């Protein structure tokens, strides 16, 4: 009896979070949508034309490249550290935990402008290296925290069993550790990707005028809602793709 009601509730919640976003799609393709009309007066591709007349393509690729590189590096650096923290191998983990999490508490704008001071001196201002380094400052903590929440005695026991069964460390990693922690790794990668992908503050500070998608998009938000909505949909595309992959990875059983 509670099933249909639960289904209705779930559908309502889903609608509450998805319907307002549909307005974004409508807005993107509404050449004219004046109050008090509930439907646009005129549909068209004006938003697409203006959005793609500038740096949008380059900005899209820049953002994609920086986010992918940042997440890959973050996962490699975070995995061993998250294992130590998640399995509670330290007698005093608080210091390490606070040190690793500290960058999350600082505005990305602050991290960006602080690092720019040095990047200009090193001639790295506006380079991919500078952007990845700036994003890594807060993506690495996010990835570490999400990863460590999924590690614990359960995984250790499984690995112990793999070792006793004669699996080499590498095969143990490929056949046991990674599949067993796939949901956590996927969640960590998703969060890291999104944080880098949508970061405005540090991209603006470190980018040195290099087009990054959020930086290209911001001026349109106040000035031209239709172009902003169009860019927003473009902004959403890789994130949604990444999300679908994550949900699939999260559901894969060991």
């Amino acid at each position: 009896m509670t099933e249909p009601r639960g289904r209705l509730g779930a559908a309502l919640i889903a609608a509450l979070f998805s319907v307002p976003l549909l307005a974004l799609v409508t807005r993107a393709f509404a050449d004219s949508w004046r109050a008090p009309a509930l439907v646009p007066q005129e549909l068209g591709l004006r938003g697409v034309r203006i959005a793609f007349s500038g740096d949008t393509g380059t900005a899209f690729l820049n953002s994609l490249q920086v986010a992918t590189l940042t997440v890959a590096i973050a996962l490699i650096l975070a995995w061993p550290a998250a294992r130590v923290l998640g399995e509670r191998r330290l007698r005093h983990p608080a210091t390490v935990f606070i040190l690793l999490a500290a960058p999350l508490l600082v505005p990305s704008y602050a991290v960006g402008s602080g690092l720019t001071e040095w990047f200009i001196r090193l001639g790295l201002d506006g380079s991919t290296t500078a952007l990845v380094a700036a994003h890594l400052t807060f993506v690495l903590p996010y990835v570490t925290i999400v990863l460590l929440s999924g590690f614990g005695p359960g995984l250790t026991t499984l690995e112990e069993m793999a070792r006793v069964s004669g699996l080499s460390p590498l095969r143990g990693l490929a056949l046991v550790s990674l599949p067993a922690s796939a949901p956590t790794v996927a969640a960590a990668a998703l969060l890291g990707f999104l944080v880098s992908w949508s970061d405005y503050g540090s991209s603006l500070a470190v980018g040195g005028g290099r087009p990054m998608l959020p930086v290209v998009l911001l001026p349109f938000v106040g000035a031209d809602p239709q172009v902003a909505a169009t860019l927003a949909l473009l902004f959403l595309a890789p994130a949604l793709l990444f999300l679908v992959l994550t949900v699939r990875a999260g559901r894969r059983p060991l």
Partner: protein
Amino acid sequence: MSGALLRHPRVRNYARLAPAILTITLLFGGALAGAVRTSVLPLGQDATLATWSSLLHAPELVDAALFTLRTALISTLLAAAVAVAIALAVWRRGTWVRALLALAVPIPHLLVATVAVLWLAPGGLAERVLGALPITLVRDRAGLGVVLVYVYKEAPFLALLLLAAMGQGYREREEACAALGASASQRLRWVTWPTIRGPLVVGSIIVFAYVLGAFEVPLALGPSYPPTLAEYAFNATRGDLISGQSTAAATLLLTSVAAMLLAVLAVRLAKDPQGD
């Protein structure tokens, strides 16, 4: 000999922590050092503490700090409460509900703010549907619109963190507990709460710190006064070319210190951020 040393558990632990810790120390330490340097070395001038002393005497800073703290606290508490309700409502649902729910997560804050303006501003879609809104939500002095955007944006994020924790073995424990005759509230206390407490606390600290430091949302639909701390910093860089960067750096450093202190406090209060 080095092999034997590496096999020592404590050395091994620190060796595995080293890559992450060294990276963070270098980048984060570098960023803070850079910000401190900017705050005491205004463009083309000698080292001075003038920026700090004028900042700490600005009445606007106190207003900004109080407004920022209040917004961040209310947003975080509401988002956490909504997230728990969502997680409890949909944890039995299939992938599609989670995917729909997760639609709000990948959208940058600035775009949620854009959507909010599209719906809630005077003449927006909500007014067109309902006729009139009982309260002002965009550019209102209390910052209700800002809080609303953050709750909308962060509640699904927190809910997904909770749902991730409720995946592995949670259903079995829940059902076992129910089969043994535990009531709904007992299951909530003994099974659900221990499962979600860790991610909830960690997630809430992340959300709180984010709200404290972000400036896109308040710029888009917050009140013109008081500004949030990050907005105050952002405005400074646009106001004065010479001292603006210094004022911004000093303000952002203050925000950072406040956020770190509050997070330490939260971790203390929650005892163990991973819970069990």
